[in-house]
C-alpha cells in the first residue's frame, strides 16, 4: 500500500497566526518499512510560524496513539435488547455470572444451567406478551429452587416458595395467640410473657422488626426467674442479619465460631473467596444461662436460618420442630432491559462444619404439630418444649 500524502492550505486566523499556515504531510518512519510491515500514516507538521515544525512528529505520533488508546479503552458492558430474547439472555447471564450456588446445586439437585438455557430459549417467541414472558422467566428461575430468587415486575413477584409450601407448616397462628394471651409484653419486635409453668416464651415474627440491646436486656431481665426459655421463630422469614446476631449473642459467654461465609470473586461458577470464619461475640449486657429451646419450622428462612445456625452453637440451646427452610445466601439485586428487578443469592453461608445451609438446618429435636393437639387448642411443639424444660 502506498504511503498517502496530504497537503492542505488553510486560512490562518488573522489576529494570531502569520500568513504561512500549512498542514504539511511528510514521510513516515522507515523502520516499519524495512521490517516489511505495511503501514500507512498521516503526518501533519503544524508549522504556522515558519519552516521549523512547531510540534515535532513524535507529538503527533503520541496524539494518534493516544486517540486509538482512548477508543480502545472504553469500558462497556453488553447491552441486551428489550425483547423476549434479550431479556431472557440478560437474566440467564446475570445468574450465570453472579449466582453463588450453581456448582453446589449441580451436585445437590443435578442443576445444569447451560441445559436450562437451551430448554427455555426454545419457549420464547417474538409475539409473546409480557405476562407470558414473565411466566417463562419465573419458571427458568424456579429451576434454581431458591427462595431468595425473585423476579419483580409491575404486576407480580415471581417466586419459588416450595421450600415451605411443600411441607407441613407445624404452626397454627390462632393457637400461638392463645399461648401469648392478652397480657403479653412487646419489646420492639419481641412478643413475650411467662407461661403458667414458669417458662419464658418469646415470639419473634420477623427479623425485619428491629431490636436493640436494651430491648433484649429488658426481656431477659423480666424472664430471669423462669426455669427455661422458649424462643418461637416459626414463620419468621428473615430480615436483618444484625438483629439475628444481636439476639443470639445473649446466649453465649464467650466468643464462639458459628460458621463461615464467602463471596464470588469472578464470573466463573467456582470463583469464590476463601471462607471467612464468623464468630459470635457475647453480649456485654444480660446473658441467658438457663436452658433455651428455639422452635423452628420450614418457614424459618434467610436471617432466621442464620439465627438458628448461631443458636445451635450456643451452650444450653436446642432447636425443636421441623428443619428450617434454608436460604443460606445473602441476596443481591440486578435488573433486565425491560426494567424488571431480579434478586438472587450472591454470598453463600456455611455452618461451622463448612457445610452449606442453603437447604435448611435440621432440628435437634424433631417434632410435628399433631392434629389431635390442634383440636384441643394445644401446640405440640410448645408443649413438648415446656415438658423438656420442666424436666430439668
Amino acid at each position, binding site marked *: 500500500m502506498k504511503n498517502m500524502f496530504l497537503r492542505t492550505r488553510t486560512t490562518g486566523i488573522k*489576529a494570531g497566526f502569520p500568513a504561512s499556515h500549512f498542514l504539511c504531510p511528510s514521510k513516515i518512519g522507515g523502520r516499519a518499512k524495512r521490517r516489511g510491515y505495511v503501514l500507512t500514516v498521516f503526518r501533519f507538521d503544524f508549522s504556522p510560524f515558519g519552516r521549523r515544525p512547531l510540534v515535532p512528529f513524535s507529538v503527533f505520533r503520541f496524539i494518534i496513539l493516544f486517540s486509538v488508546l482512548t477508543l480502545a*479503552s472504553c469500558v*462497556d458492558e453488553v447491552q441486551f435488547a428489550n425483547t423476549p430474547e434479550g431479556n431472557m439472555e440478560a437474566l440467564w447471564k446475570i445468574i450465570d455470572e453472579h449466582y453463588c450456588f450453581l456448582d453446589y446445586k449441580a451436585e445437590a439437585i443435578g442443576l445444569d444451567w447451560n441445559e436450562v438455557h437451551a430448554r427455555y430459549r426454545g419457549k420464547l417467541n417474538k409475539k409473546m406478551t409480557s405476562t407470558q414472558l414473565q411466566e417463562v422467566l419465573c419458571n427458568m428461575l424456579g429451576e434454581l429452587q431458591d427462595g431468595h430468587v425473585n423476579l419483580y415486575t409491575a404486576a407480580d413477584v415471581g417466586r419459588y416458595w416450595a421450600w415451605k409450601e411443600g411441607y407441613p407448616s407445624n404452626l397454627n397462628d390462632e393457637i400461638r395467640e392463645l399461648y401469648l394471651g392478652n397480657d403479653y409484653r412487646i419489646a420492639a419486635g419481641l412478643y413475650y410473657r411467662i407461661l403458667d409453668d414458669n417458662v419464658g416464651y418469646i415470639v419473634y415474627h420477623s427479623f425485619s422488626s428491629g431490636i436493640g440491646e436494651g430491648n433484649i436486656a429488658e426481656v431477659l431481665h423480666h424472664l430471669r426467674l423462669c426455669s427455661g426459655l422458649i424462643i418461637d421463630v416459626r414463620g419468621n422469614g428473615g430480615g436483618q442479619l444484625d438483629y439475628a446476631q444481636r439476639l443470639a449473642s445473649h446466649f453465649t459467654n464467650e466468643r464462639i465460631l458459628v460458621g463461615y461465609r464467602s463471596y464470588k470473586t469472578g464470573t466463573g461458577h467456582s470463583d469464590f473467596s476463601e471462607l471467612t470464619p464468623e464468630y459470635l461475640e457475647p453480649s456485654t449486657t444480660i446473658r441467658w444461662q438457663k436452658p433455651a429451646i428455639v422452635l423452628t419450622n420450614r418457614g424459618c428462612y434467610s436471617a432466621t436460618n442464620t439465627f438458628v445456625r448461631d443458636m445451635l452453637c450456643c451452650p444450653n440451646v436446642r432447636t425443636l420442630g421441623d428443619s428450617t427452610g434454608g436460604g443460606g445466601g445473602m441476596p443481591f439485586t440486578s*435488573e433486565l432491559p425491560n426494567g424488571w428487578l431480579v434478586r438472587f443469592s450472591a454470598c453463600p453461608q456455611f455452618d461451622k462444619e463448612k457445610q452449606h445451609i442453603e437447604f435448611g438446618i435440621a432440628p435437634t429435636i424433631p417434632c410435628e404439630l399433631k392434629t389431635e393437639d390442634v383440636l384441643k387448642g394445644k401446640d405440640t411443639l410448645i408443649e413438648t418444649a415446656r415438658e423438656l424444660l420442666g424436666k430439668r
Partner: protein
Amino acid sequence: MTLAILSMPLRLVAQSAGDSIRTHSFVLGIGSSHQLDTYLSPLNYTGYQVSFLRETLRMTRLANRRVSFQSLWQGTFSQTSNISGTTTDWGAHIGYDALWHYNWTPVQGLRLMAGGAIGADAGVLYNSRGGNNPAQGRVNVDISASVMAIYKFRLWRQDLSFRYQANMPLMGVMFSPQFGQSYYEIGTGNANGNACFSQPGNAFSLWQQFTVDIPVGKYVVIRTGYLCDIRQSHVHGIKMHDRSHSFMIGFVKHFRNVGREKRKVADVIL
C-alpha cells in the same frame, strides 16, 4: 484567568520579587451523564449532571518562574435512569487536583504547558432499587499527566483567551469491592484486596476542558466552555464508566499579591 497568565512574564519583570498574580475562577456546569456500574446493574444509565469547578492558577518561582501551579476543586451531582425508566441512580463526587505545569511561550499569544498532578477523588453512586448492593463507593488517589494550551487574540476590541486542558491519570490507588463482595462483608473487617493499583490499562480516565474567557466591561471576565469528564475502571471484574459532557459558565477574578514590604500599615486589616 488566561489574560493574567499571558501577561505574567511582562508584569513579573516589572514587579518586585514579592508580587504575583493569582487567578481564581468559579464555573458551574450542566450537561449529560452516561453511567455504568456492573456492581449495581448491567444496564447503562443516562441522565443529567450538574457540577462546579473551582480553580486557582499562579506562577511559582520554580525553574526560573516557568512553572505554574494550578489548584482544581471539582464537585458533581448526577441523576440518571435506566432505559426503561424504572430505576434511578443518584451520584455525587468531589475531587481535588494539584497540578504543576512547565510553561513554554514559543510566540506571543500562545502558551503551551505540560506537567503532572496529584489528585484525590471520593464519590458514591446510589441505586434506588438495590437490595444488599444498593450503592457503590468510589475513592481514588492518582498521579496524572496534564497538558494545557492557551491562545490569546484580540477580536472586536476585546482580548479573548482560548484554553484547552487535558488530564489523564497514569497511576494510583483506588478502592473497589471484589466482584460479589457486599459492603456488609467489608464492614465486618474483611477488606483484603479492596485497594487496587490503577493505571490506564484498568482505569483509563480522561478529563478535558475547553474554555473561552470573555471580558465584559472593565472588571468582569466571563468564562464559558465545555467539560468532558471520562472516568472508567475495570477492576475485580466490575466494569464502571461515568462519562459526562457539560456546558460550563462562570467568572474569573485576578488577585495580585503585593508582598509584605509594599503593604501600607493603614491598608492592613489583620
